[in-house]
């Protein structure tokens, strides 16, 4: 299990940078997604589509309690049991209770970042349940004992040779680095699990208020197996995933896959409404939907509420120069990259995460990529302001900024500061190549201002 924390971001990142395989894998994957995304976007009017998507998401957030109530009524009417969980512990215990009362032993699990946020697997394993991740990437990292390093490509940091060795080690198969062979091996193992699992647990990309439906986008088909083969299906999702109606879905069907993997559409789009009734061909006989808050109602009241528009496509991390260099584990919590900086600091608090607010060059590439127009760059700035006001900015930085604030108002003080810095430059430079001075040129002896008439 990777035990990196957000507080150690700099150390985590520095060691990730030394991992040549990780850096190469990150570069290849993010470049590929970038290229495919550009091509896929050519077939739509991205700027019009994201305006529309943003407006839909914002309208939901502005009326979220009403939408949750409506979704709950409709889903219940369709035969689902809807549970509200205030926090991670509540969600985990609701799910454990459902599994226990159904005498479940083994669970086939579809991909869900919300379950990562609540550490659901660890909780259920402690309670004695066997949990098998069935998304290929999730399966790989489960075997490795890792957490996802990307919200839609959990094993993005691994290359096929590493996966080949992992499968040979853990599954007792012959080593292969052929992705097709490896996929076939996983399919063989997982097929058995789908057929024998007592329950399926999934996430959901969206929930539709007017019909009480869940919407799941997948490429591997495991989402359908998990939600329809076992007799019991539990879906866990956060409260902000709601869309008003089925009529709103096409906008997101166009935007989400294009933004995520650069696909026009995912291989499977499943819309699940209620449990299986007499005469229905598919579906779980018993369906539970767990709606997780875990701090989101609080975010909704603050100045970063727009982060809840996020549809978890990962485009912001794919284009982020920091993320593509250090990978996702360095961020130390569930969500990496620009959206991760904002969500982690909001959901876990500054005390547990303040170094993350520095993990951005403020280049703004995330703002341009976001399909629902979340102003990520501005939110990272807002979190930096919050870090200062909550007292988590290092004393040396605060002192420096205080002096800067004084000097910047006086040309005399400012130029004295510049001269002093110049005087000690050689000392700073000799202190080592990684400090700032070592990377800057020597200050000029005659500043530009003194060359001006």
């Amino acid at each position, binding site marked *: 299990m990777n035990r990196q924390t957000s507080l150690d971001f700099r150390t985590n990142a520095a060691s990730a940078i030394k991992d040549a395989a990780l850096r190469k894998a990150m570069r290849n994957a993010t470049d590929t997604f970038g290229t495919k995304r550009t091509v896929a976007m050519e077939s739509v009017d991205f700027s019009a589509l994201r305006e529309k998507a943003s407006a839909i998401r914002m309208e939901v957030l502005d009326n979220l309690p009403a939408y949750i109530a409506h979704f709950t009524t409709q889903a219940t009417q369709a035969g689902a049991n809807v549970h509200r969980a205030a926090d991670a512990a509540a969600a985990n215990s609701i799910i454990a209770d459902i599994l226990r009362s159904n005498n479940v032993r083994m669970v086939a699990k579809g991909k869900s970042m919300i379950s990562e946020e609540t550490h659901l697997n660890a909780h259920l394993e402690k309670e004695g349940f066997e949990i098998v991740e069935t998304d290929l990437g999730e399966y790989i990292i489960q075997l490795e004992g890792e957490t996802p390093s990307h919200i839609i490509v959990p094993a993005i940091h691994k290359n096929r040779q590493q996966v080949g060795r992992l499968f040979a080690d853990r599954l007792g198969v012959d080593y292969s680095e052929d992705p097709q062979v490896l996929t076939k091996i996983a399919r063989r193992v997982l097929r058995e699990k789908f057929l024998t699992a007592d329950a399926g647990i999934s996430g959901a990309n969206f929930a539709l208020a007017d019909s009480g439906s869940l919407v799941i986008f997948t490429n591997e088909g495991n989402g359908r197996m998990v939600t329809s083969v076992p007799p019991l299906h539990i879906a866990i999702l956060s409260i902000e995933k709601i869309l008003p109606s089925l009529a709103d879905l096409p906008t997101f069907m166009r935007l989400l896959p294009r933004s995520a993997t650069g696909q026009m559409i995912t291989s499977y789009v499943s819309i699940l409404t209620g449990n299986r009734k007499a005469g229905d061909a598919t579906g779980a006989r018993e369906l539970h939907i767990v709606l997780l808050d875990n701090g989101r109602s609080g975010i909704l009241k603050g100045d970063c509420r727009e982060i809840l528009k996020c549809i978890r496509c990962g485009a912001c991390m794919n284009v982020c120069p920091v993320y593509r260099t250090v990978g996702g584990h360095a961020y130390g919590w569930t969500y990496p990259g620009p959206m991760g900086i904002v969500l982690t600091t909001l959901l876990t608090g500054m005390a547990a995460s303040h170094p993350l607010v520095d993990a951005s060059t403020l280049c703004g*590439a995330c703002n341009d990529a976001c399909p629902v127009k979340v102003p990520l760059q501005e939110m990272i700035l807002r979190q930096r302001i919050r870090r200062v006001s909550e007292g988590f900015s290092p004393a040396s930085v605060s002192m420096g900024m205080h002096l800067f604030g004084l000097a*910047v108002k006086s040309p005399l003080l400012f130029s004295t500061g510049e001269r002093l810095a110049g005087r000690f430059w050689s000392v700073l430079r000799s202190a080592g190549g990684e400090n700032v001075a070592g990377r800057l040129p020597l200050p000029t002896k005659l500043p530009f201002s003194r060359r001006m008439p």
Partner: protein
Amino acid sequence: MHVQLFGTCLVNTFFPGVGEAVVRIFNRFGVEFSFPKEQTCCGQPAYNAGYIPEAKGAAEHFISAFGGSNDLIVTPSGSCAAMVKHHYPELFRDDPVKLQAAEQVAGRVYELSQFLVNVLKVHETDLTGSGRVTYHSSCHLTRTLGATQEPLALIQALRGVEFVPMPDATRCCGFGGLFMAKLPEISMAIADDKAESIIATGADTVTGCDCGCLMNIADALGKRGSSVKVKHIAELVAEGL
């Protein structure tokens, strides 16, 4: 035409040659200018670090140093221009009086290449240069100011220069102001990727509109032992005058 020149603290301390290149360009094209002596820094380091009172202090000082005039304010930095143009009004959005002053200054500020192309139309005159030149499209210039075409228009107007585009020219170089000091390992790794892209173009010179980024890129190129020269766009244009 009369303008005010905002040199920026990086030019003042590290790259006076860039400022002098701007002056040569102004002289060549008959632009009269003043250099307000009270100018210091636009306050971006404080703003980006979340120190709002300090950033407001810098902004108020800038507004008073450049105030009382309707001249355009020209600066050889996309990042500093973006600070004044977009973030000053945000800083004072709850104070109508100061907001008006901030907007007045914001409306007058031009990044150098925008001024040269959109106002002076320098790219339509006879400019010369030499060699193979590639261009790094710095982040705030590109994404905050939206100056995606002006620097290219200038480079392509230089007779004798072969322009070679850089793949992912708009990808960040890893400078990020204080970012380079706070997370130097990441900053250097990102800059190294940028240096690799630059070297792969086969250009002998890389240019851009921001001294901070160019400084970071020069360091990364130097670490690779590259002979690619790093020049601010003002220097590139001034050389051929």
